[in-house]
């Protein structure tokens, strides 16, 4: 029992990060119809910038704030410089653009930072908490709590504020949104900034546990994508639940089946979901106009 609980704790921690990446995916996908393969790089940037800002003497909260702000700016730049000019391009081209962006960001951070593995101290000490024979790091609580707070914040933003509803309107029908006076260009900028900031925040929260280096982004992007797809592409609730589920499944696979094949869990799930319920857990069935 305590063993299972231990796996659940670690699964929830990793899953919370996947959930944040998947949420970021969903925001950009809804706003622009683009699947952003560079999403994982935002997480990497969040962690790496915090590490280096902190090492240069800034207090941790300030370093984290700078990291989130800079990453959001990178997200905006990605939209302005690479996604917007290619509007209407075929799916393959968009895939290659965002993968290119991800390689570019990785290459740049390898130059700006370095190739070492980094970390910074956990927010509230390193003493684990004991629960029913299992232990959980306080930082894990930060990660899980942070993810839930971000999810609730997003939900409030999208349902309760005018700006959030403008984003939803744009993702439903860009032209119609424009006709009722929504600045869709600004909405796109906002979506990319928001998505990047969420990713960066995930990076800030999880780095004390998983450590970070310039090349952690790709794996995270793929897992986050799997999570988004598991929950149903374009559905924020699905993305969040999908992320947690994926994390749990991975931890259980590692614990009970094979730690070597824990990464396989994500991809077997993608394939199974796509085969048997392509709309995901929470997605609606879609039909194409001919």
């Amino acid at each position: 029992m305590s063993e299972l609980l231990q796996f659940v704790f670690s699964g929830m921690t990793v899953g919370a990060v996947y959930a944040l990446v998947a949420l970021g995916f969903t925001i950009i996908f809804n706003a622009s119809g683009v699947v952003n393969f560079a999403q994982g790089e935002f997480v990497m940037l969040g962690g790496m910038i915090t590490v280096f800002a902190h090492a240069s003497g800034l207090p941790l909260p300030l370093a984290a704030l700078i990291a989130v702000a800079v990453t959001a700016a990178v997200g905006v730049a990605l939209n302005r410089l690479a996604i917007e000019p290619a509007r209407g391009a075929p799916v393959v081209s968009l895939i290659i653009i965002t993968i290119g962006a991800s390689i570019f960001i990785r290459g740049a951070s390898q130059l700006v930072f370095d190739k070492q593995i980094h970390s910074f101290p956990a927010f509230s000490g390193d003493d684990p908490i004991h629960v029913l024979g299992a232990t959980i790091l306080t930082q894990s609580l930060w990660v899980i709590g942070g993810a839930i707070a971000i999810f609730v914040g997003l939900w409030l933003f999208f349902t309760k504020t005018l700006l959030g509803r403008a984003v939803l309107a744009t993702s439903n029908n860009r032209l119609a949104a424009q006709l009722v006076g929504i600045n869709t260009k600004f909405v796109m900028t906002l979506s990319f900034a928001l998505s990047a900031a969420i990713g960066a925040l995930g990076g800030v929260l999880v780095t004390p546990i998983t450590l970070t280096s310039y090349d952690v982004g790709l794996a995270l992007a793929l897992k986050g994508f799997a999570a988004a797809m598991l929950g149903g592409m374009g559905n924020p609730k699905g993305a969040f639940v999908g992320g947690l589920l994926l994390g749990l499944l991975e931890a259980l696979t590692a614990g009970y089946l094979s730690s070597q094949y824990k990464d396989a869990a994500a991809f077997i799930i993608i394939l199974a979901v796509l085969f048997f319920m392509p709309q995901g857990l929470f997605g609606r069935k879609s039909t194409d106009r001919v």
Partner: protein
Amino acid sequence: MRISTKYWTLLFLAALIAVTPFFFPSGYYFRVGSLLFVNGLAVTGIVILTGYAGQISLGHAGFAGIGGYACALAPVHWGVPPALAVVLGAAVSGVLAYLVGRPILRLKGYYLGVASLGFGILVAMVLNNERALTRGPDGIEVPDLGLRGLLKDWGLNLTNGEFWYVVTGICLLIGAWIALNLHSSPTGRALRALHGSEVAAGTVGIDVARVKLQAFVISAIYASVAGSLLALQNKFITPDVAGFLHSVEMVTMAVLGGVSSVPGAILGAGVLTLLPQVLTVFAEYEQLILGLVMMLVMIFLPEGLVPSILRRLRGRDE
């Protein structure tokens, strides 16, 4: 004049392959050349799948991995001659593509991309983890093809670089010839029809699912043979050959040059094969520049280099 365009393309390609070695300053360039041809072969398969049929795969490196490891494992474990191992790898890849392709080709766009990506990563994972068989991430040595020795006995003495330049060059020509033939064959026309509109293709009596699957299997075999040639040439193979980045590289090469045309895709393979060789001087900046090239080409030349350049040359009369 359609038919002659095809033969001009092949002739031009053959001439290029035959003449360039006279300008090679050193033997090292034979190796770069054969690497380019292997990539060109894999990318020609992508042209059939993505350019003709309009389907995306981000997992074709998985098939390259199968082809490569077939050449590493079959001769050692089952005594299959290396040349036959290439065929064996291609057969396994083809069957696997058939089995995987049936369910995943029902998907479209991003979903198909991700499903194929999942497949490719699973292959890479198996190659990494089944150490008893594949010896894991460090890679495994591949037996010699044996053909060079045979040629030597017949009095034809080639260096290793020259030999592989010739073999891969011939394979690329055969691959390009098949792909060009396919283009105007009934299957090729069916593929291009469903690229335009699956529903329309279906209403004129094309078995959409079947032709898609055919394209997937054929392109998997291309990737597999390319993987085999790479393994035999290097006499060594690592699971990286099946990795996600290799899949992306294949698609990028194809799209860079122009995914709907065989010569375009081969040019794309050329650019991306030569780029790292040029960039060794700036090894630090390699990823930066590669990412930049990928983005810039897709933004400014969305159809790829060759079609965009051709359009410029013809003027804007279309």
